[in-house]
């Protein structure tokens, strides 16, 4: 019964996300047991993404500057390339995967039972026939 109500809610296209961003698709309110959401459990949150982007830029610029400085001082072009490659690999390891450190302020999604109590408000149309058709389909 609980599963059927979930699927019917997603078919109606009810969104319970307050921000209405592109993340809030029809399946985003499904319980974590669904395989669709398991892949999205380990995402970064918004603050984590900003933090990761800042870390990426700082790491890359720093490794470029350090590589150039070391190569210039040691008169070795190959050394510069090696240090820069190491810096890029380190940046990729720290920034790209979804580490839990970037998920310290996770978003709190609304409960499905709570969403059903507050249906999405209807948008009023110009022609009455199309609006009546829409109301009939939505109030299944």
């Amino acid at each position, binding site marked *: 019964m609980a599963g059927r109500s979930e699927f019917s809610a997603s078919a109606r296209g009810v969104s319970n996300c307050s921000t209405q961003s592109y*993340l809030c698709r029809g399946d985003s309110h499904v319980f974590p047991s669904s395989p669709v959401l398991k892949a999205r459990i380990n*995402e970064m949150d918004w603050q984590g*993404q900003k933090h*990761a*982007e800042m870390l*990426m*830029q700082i790491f*890359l*610029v720093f490794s*470029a500057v350090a*590589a*150039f400085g070391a*190569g*210039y001082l*040691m*008169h*070795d*072009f190959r050394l*510069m390339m090696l240090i*820069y490659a190491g810096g*890029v690999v380190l*940046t*990729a390891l720290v*920034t*790209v*995967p*979804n580490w839990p450190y970037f998920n310290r302020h996770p978003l709190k999604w609304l409960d499905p039972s709570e969403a059903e109590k507050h249906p999405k408000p209807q948008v009023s149309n110009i022609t009455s026939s199309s609006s009546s058709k829409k109301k009939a389909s939505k109030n299944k």
Partner: protein
Amino acid sequence: MHSAVQRANTAATIAAILLATICAAASFLDAFNSPSLQAHVQVVKINRFRRQLDGNDEVKMTLKMSMDLTSLFTWNTKQVFVFLAAEYETDTNSLNQVSLWDHIVQEKERASFQVKVPTKYPLIDQGTNLRGKKVGLVLHWHIMPISGRMIQGKMPLSNFSLPDSYTTRS
């Protein structure tokens, strides 16, 4: 930045841009290198001076050269290509340049040397103008960097005069 793949794409793009930046910076610093090289060349003897069957003059000679190219090398240098050109003037051409000998120097440690060699390539004229001609020897070099544009330079060295008649009959 939402998924790991997008972050990987962003990291790769920024890394490529920064790589281009540091290579351009390394090449840019090359322009401040003012080389001061020494070179000396001397014609030991003219081995053969003849007129070829198709009508052109040909000279083969032995050269004694000493040069020090170490100041051309920077940390951004891959190799230096150096060649010796004979320059002279004729009635039809205001400047003729013929390469007599060239060498590739790949390491700074081997950039200073002395050699006594016959010319790698004979001096072949477009015509028969070489008898008694005053020829100038100019050392040219091309510095090929690891990243950046090639730098060229030249330095005129000593002159010499060819004999008035052929040393061997063709």
